[in-house]
């Protein structure tokens, strides 16, 4: 646009900066509060500065099962991540050709994305109840999470293959590559950064998922359910320590994904 920054730019830049503060401020404030002193309260001011509430977190809690929930959520997120990448990739490959039912399947995926989550949770819960099956985090909750992560995975694959140049694959075929070889040596390396993106969505959306999990984890909790329970029962900053820990896990996963994408991109140059 124009060479000099006009008034409009500065007004919008300030608006953007305020939005970023609004976006990150609350999370940062609970991160600070999680370092409250042992006598510290749920609100500011800081009453000393300590790791007391983190130590408290690793001690056995009078209520709930933080360690168990944390371990379950990490394992579940890893399984969901793997399945989301695999199933979305296969479906993405399928959608490059015509197949009967493709439009219906696409609309089902979109419907799964926008359906109020609690409806899916009630349905899966009621199904297991009627069949007399036990609900566990690695069966019913896994399924519930996949209904949330797979639509994102599929949409990302659409975006990827919409921009994919089919000539590259045709060239491989012309040089004698089999279907599998052209996927393995041509398609996969090209779309690798996007697959990392799908993995990021799979892990984080599962790790933080609450509404679809609500009726389907059985007797035990995932981390978000544990947090919800603590939120209503706890009056100490231990919940902030847990929030800080969970957020750090998310940041670590995001950082790893972005770094992996950057490494792949730089190798290509």
């Amino acid at each position: 646009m124009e060479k000099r920054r006009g008034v409009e730019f500065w007004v919008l830049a300030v608006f953007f900066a305020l939005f970023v503060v609004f976006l990150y401020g609350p999370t940062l404030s609970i991160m600070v509060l999680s370092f409250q002193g042992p006598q510290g309260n749920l609100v500011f001011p800081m009453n000393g500065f300590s790791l007391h509430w983190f130590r408290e977190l690793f001690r056995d809690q009078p209520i709930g099962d933080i360690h168990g929930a944390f371990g379950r959520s990490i394992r579940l997120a890893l399984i969901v991540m793997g399945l989301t990448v695999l199933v979305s990739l296969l479906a993405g490959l399928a959608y490059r050709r015509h197949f009967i039912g493709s439009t219906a399947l696409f609309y089902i995926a979109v419907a799964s994305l926008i359906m109020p989550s609690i409806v899916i949770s009630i349905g899966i819960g009621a199904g297991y109840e009627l069949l007399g099956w036990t609900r566990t985090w690695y069966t019913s909750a896994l399924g519930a999470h996949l209904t949330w992560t797979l639509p994102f995975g599929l949409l990302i694959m659409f975006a990827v293959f919409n921009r994919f140049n089919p000539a590259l694959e045709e060239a491989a075929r012309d040089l004698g590559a089999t279907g599998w070889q052209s996927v393995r040596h041509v398609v996969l390396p090209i779309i690798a950064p996007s697959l990392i993106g799908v993995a990021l969505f799979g892990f984080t959306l599962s790790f933080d998922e609450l509404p679809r999990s609500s009726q389907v984890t059985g007797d035990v909790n995932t981390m978000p359910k544990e947090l919800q329970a603590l939120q209503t029962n706890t009056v100490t900053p231990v919940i902030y320590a847990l929030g800080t820990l969970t957020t750090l896990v998310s940041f670590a996963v995001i950082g790893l994904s972005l770094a992996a994408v950057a490494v792949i991109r730089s190798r290509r140059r």
Partner: protein
Amino acid sequence: MSLSSRTVPYFQAAPLALIFLAFFVTPVLLVGAVSFFDYQTWDILIPDFNFYNYEYLLESSTTYRTYANTAKLCALAWVFTLSIGFTIAYFLAFHVRTVPTQIALFLVCTIPFWTSNIIRTISWIPLLGREGLVNQALVGSGLAAEPVEWLLYSEFAVILGYVHLYTLFMIVPIFNSMMRIDPALIEAARDAGASQWQVLWTIVIPLSRPGIAIGTIFVIAMVMGDYFTVDVLGGAKVASVGKTIVNELGYLQYPPAAANAVVLTLVTILLIVGLMRIVNIRKEL
């Protein structure tokens, strides 16, 4: 194409189709069936076909009040997420000049999406509460004589929470639409003497419509299905359909919850189908 290569897509799409069939299509149909079931305290699902749950739901004036209130939350969340999301996307698309800066600022806006909504919601409490940071600042600076009560456990707090969580769902698709606008189009308008506002009104907004529609679908779906934000930030004062359903589930009243869920789904679908007519999602990615 040989017969075997024609069957390949079916094998490739099968896992996705089977997962959706088992964990989405069947459960949703089941919710429909359960909404006609009977229930007792010791037996929470008794197969039956009666309209009792719907009669109870549709005869209660509380139901209509709750739906009206949910619609109000939805409308307010939409107005704020749209206006803020559009402004942010506009800044990123038309005022940030270099691509690396654009990517960096875009990431700054999207990273919170990959962190926990629960924690992001809870983290408003120490700021908005009676003893919270905002009230400390207001009272300390003399702007308010005593702590402001409506900051937390109010509709204000719920809307603030929605804007905080869901504005991203407006920014991403609107930014995507804006990046597809041919710069030559805007230049031509400028050369022909259009003002900044005219460019915005006659080019940018109409061409951003698909992004606005997708963002709107997301925000409506999220707000209609929410119960956590309403519960944590609205306290006992704010009613929503999602919260009512979760309360019923808490009492193990599955069939009434299912009936309520069916009505909620139909209302959400009606709203969204209307919007889908405006835009073909698949082409916009």
